[in-house]
């Protein structure tokens, strides 16, 4: 989902909400957006992985993005969505509080992450995009998310 517009390269991102945080995932990593359904729990799995779902014949582990990024747990509601994320042979359903929009971002509009980030956010946030001048959207690194899952026990 990248295009060249004049001199600037643009990419499409899926803009989602996690608690009060605004985050985005690069569109090339997103396969599908699904409504919440209760996953089958896996005995011994950490709370960040609430279980498995079936999406059109593919069994996907669900990753709770809130817990992964150190945000408080929340019960699913009407706006909760599962995002089928695919990155380097890995597929998973990322649990988010809401899908907000699809946005197109020019490469030049992306800023490095703040230096004061700590913990999981420091690992997972690869850049910041100033959306409509008054909102910062954190762009997540899908590879870092999958690495974090194995470390957050």
């Amino acid at each position, binding site marked *: 989902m990248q295009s060249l517009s004049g001199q600037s390269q643009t990419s499409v991102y899926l803009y989602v909400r996690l608690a009060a945080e605004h985050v985005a995932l690069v569109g090339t990593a997103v396969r599908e957006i699904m409504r919440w359904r209760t*996953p*089958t*729990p*896996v*005995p*011994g*799995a*950490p709370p960040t*992985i609430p*279980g*498995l*779902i*079936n999406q059109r*014949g593919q*069994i996907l*582990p669900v990753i709770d993005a809130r817990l992964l990024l150190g945000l408080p747990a929340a019960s699913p509601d009407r706006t909760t969505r599962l995002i089928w994320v695919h990155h380097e042979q*890995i*597929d*998973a359903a990322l649990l988010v509080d809401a899908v907000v929009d699809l946005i197109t971002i020019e490469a030049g509009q992306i800023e490095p992450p703040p230096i004061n980030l700590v913990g999981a956010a420091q690992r997972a946030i690869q850049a910041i995009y100033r959306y409509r001048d008054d909102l910062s959207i954190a762009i997540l690194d899908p590879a870092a998310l*999958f690495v974090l*899952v*194995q470390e*957050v*026990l």
Partner: protein
Amino acid sequence: MILLIETISRRYLCRQNDVDAVGFPSTADRDDRGRPIMRSQLGPLLDPSDPPASGRLHALTIHLRRRVVELLVVRIDLLAEPPSVVPLAPFLTACLQLPWVTGAALLDEQPVLMLDLRRLATDLALGLRLKHAEAAL
């Protein structure tokens, strides 16, 4: 061959080869070779939200060198057509507290977990439990 196991609120799969006998639970404390018999309800052992079953239960019996483990469940069926079992994602396997789940298959369009019952029985005999079961002891 694959067995379909039912607890009160969950279904699981296991390899028939992992189980030495299927039947009703024994009433003895030791088997005929003098090995102590450990009995556990599989449902609550795996999932704190799965309540203990009452009434007539079935036992999956696994013989270990020094112990016999009986895992009690509500129902056991031999699947005539074994489902296609896919291994768990490596990142999920890597973060399991105990490696009792090896994969999953779709039954009635729902994921059903494949258990390694021999490993589970061995861990039980060693006193290993999932966190929720440790807390319940």
